[in-house]
């Protein structure tokens, strides 16, 4: 397999110092392959946004290494760093906060185009900006280009945000909950735009969401990484992870998604968590951090050693999971059963 375009090796990130430090990511291994559609899924506070920011170089890790095309980004300097910088762009969640209210749409697109030489002058920038707006479906472009963000709707703003990310001709776009604040009716169309970009421009997309159903629908050809409390607990092809979930956490998440057919929903295997409370990041449980809530908790085993991502023996799925009973025995036993 070729070198991943982006790779995490034992990446950790904590906020604050000393005793007050909050570990948001702990020893995360993750690779993003060229041209793939990777979904990061997890509850709020699981570290998926932090992962996105570290991937795009907006936040340095406090431990581990981030590789871009096989090179450690912390060693990149000058033009090599600039190339990485421009190659990974981010699309934010809130379309009302991600555009500077004092700049016109043209300004927003013009600055990066001119700065990085994608346009030599004002006129070229205008032509290029119009092309980008057309690409993201904001037509007629002449109506939009001179406007200010507050004159656009949420969906239109999000498209501008995508167009801005495209100005530097990136290879990877990290879309952080990019549609969760847009009207449901417009979500699909924006997502389809993103999918089209991926094909026509040859983009790699890292899609961060809390909505497993959305991930299942859009990343069907791609992969899903499920995160829990700062770690990746299951990663694999979408059809494996959503069709034959292995990790207890993935299982409980999927069992919570209602199916379009009510009969199937009712027949679905209902897995209930042993506790609704997500442990605090400052007082993480020992061993597997999921064990206080896990329906398959094995006392004396799961609360000792923290599991690593490994393949499950004899499973139909190619996914790798972080769960000792699974990776060592290949089976799960219900707690107390």
């Amino acid at each position, binding site marked *: 397999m070729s070198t991943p375009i982006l790779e995490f090796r034992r990446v950790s990130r904590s906020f604050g*110092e*000393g*005793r*007050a430090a909050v570990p948001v990511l702990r020893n995360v291994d993750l690779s993003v392959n060229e041209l793939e559609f990777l979904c990061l899924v997890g509850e709020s506070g699981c570290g998926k946004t932090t992962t996105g920011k570290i991937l795009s170089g907006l936040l340095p890790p406090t431990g581990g290494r981030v590789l871009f095309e096989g090179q450690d980004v912390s060693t990149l300097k000058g033009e090599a760093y600039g190339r990485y910088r421009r190659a990974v762009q981010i699309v934010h969640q809130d379309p009302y906060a991600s555009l500077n209210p004092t700049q016109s749409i043209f300004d927003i697109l013009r600055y990066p185009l001119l700065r990085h030489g994608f346009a030599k002058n004002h006129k070229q920038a205008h032509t290029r900006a119009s092309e980008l707006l057309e690409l993201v479906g904001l037509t007629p472009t002449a109506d939009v280009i001179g406007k200010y963000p507050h004159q656009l709707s949420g969906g239109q703003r999000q498209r501008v945000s995508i167009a801005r990310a495209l100005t530097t001709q990136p290879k990877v776009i990290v879309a952080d909950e990019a549609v969760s604040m847009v009207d449901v009716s417009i979500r699909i169309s924006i997502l389809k735009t993103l999918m089209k970009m991926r094909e026509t421009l040859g983009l790699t997309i890292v899609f961060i969401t809390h909505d497993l159903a959305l991930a299942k629908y859009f990343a069907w050809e791609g992969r899903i990484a499920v995160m829990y409390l700062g770690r990746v607990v299951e990663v694999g092809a979408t059809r494996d992870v959503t069709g034959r979930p292995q990790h207890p956490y993935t299982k409980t998440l999927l069992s919570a998604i209602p199916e379009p057919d009510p009969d199937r929903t009712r027949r679905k295997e209902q897995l209930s968590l042993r506790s609704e409370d997500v442990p605090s990041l400052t007082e993480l449980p020992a061993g597997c951090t999921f064990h206080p809530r896990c329906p398959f908790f094995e006392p004396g085993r799961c609360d000792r050693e923290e599991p690593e991502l490994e393949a499950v023996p004899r499973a139909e799925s190619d996914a790798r999971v972080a769960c000792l009973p699974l990776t060592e025995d290949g089976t799960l036993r219900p707690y107390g059963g």
Partner: protein
Amino acid sequence: MQTSKTLTGPPPLESGWLSRVVSSYAVRTLLQALLTIWAVVTFTFFLIRLMPGNPIDVYVGFLMNQSNLTYGEALQQAASQFSFDPNASVFQQYLGYLGDLVRGDLGTSITSTGTQVVDQIARFLPWTLFCVGLGLLISFVLGMTIGMLIAYYRNSVLDTAVSFFASVLGAVPDYIWGLLILVVFGVQLGWFNIGELRGTYDPGLTPGFTPAFIWSVVRHAFLPVLVYVIGTLGSWILNMRSSTTSVLGEDYVNVARARGLTPGRIATTYVGRNAALPLFTLLAVNIGLVIGGSVIIEELFVYKGIGSFLFFSISQRDYTSMQGVFLVIAVSVVVANILADLLYSSLDPRVRIEGER
């Protein structure tokens, strides 16, 4: 916004009783307060002594004018009367002053020989505290009530009119209001006799809880208090209005409405309490400002409080008295800030001060 409180604290020291004492809120606040006061004392001490002329020069000039003495004679007489040695180095004076201060001794006044600065302050400060305190209390309560009222009826004619009025009140300096009141109501309309209202109470009365004395004090304090109220009311109204407006948009207020709570209860326990919170910090800042500004107001109304005493001391270059007043103002600002913090944290459970957990 207030979560930063817990984040900006110093990093924890090594464990042990000492670190627990130092990081406990009360001790840290006290240390910080003492440090601030020391800094103010030091800064003003040297600044004051940099002023041109010293108390002896000023008094020599006075003696030469008054009793036709020669410079030499006047100097001798002045030097014998003052407890001030112009030849001691400023740094020696500073160390001596700090030493006395630690023992609670503010020294003796340089120009009013034999008078303790503490006594002078005790004589003038209560009047200022009385006027400023009463004025701020009235305007705070009035401003919060009016501000909340117009926030409930925002964008109505009432709101527009009152907001405009409040802006005008706040825009015009308080002493300008004082002059206006003095000239229009006192002199032109003759509603009160300004000449009689000089000082803090009518001469000839003995202080005590007699109706005559209290009435006299109230009459003399009326104009300064009125001016303090007018000078601060506008900002309370506008601040309370914007604070209430933002609280009214909060979900918990809507939920309270949906729960069918009475408007009166929502206004007091939900809106009023939360909207008033940010104003307490402002109150602390205001106390310092108003005491500082009392110099002009007291000079204007010839009211013998700490402000006019300070002005007198400055013109006489009475170093120790000036120093004493600066100290008192700094202490009152620091204390007001601490009180505001305490009040804030007792009203807002989100701000539990570090060390209480």
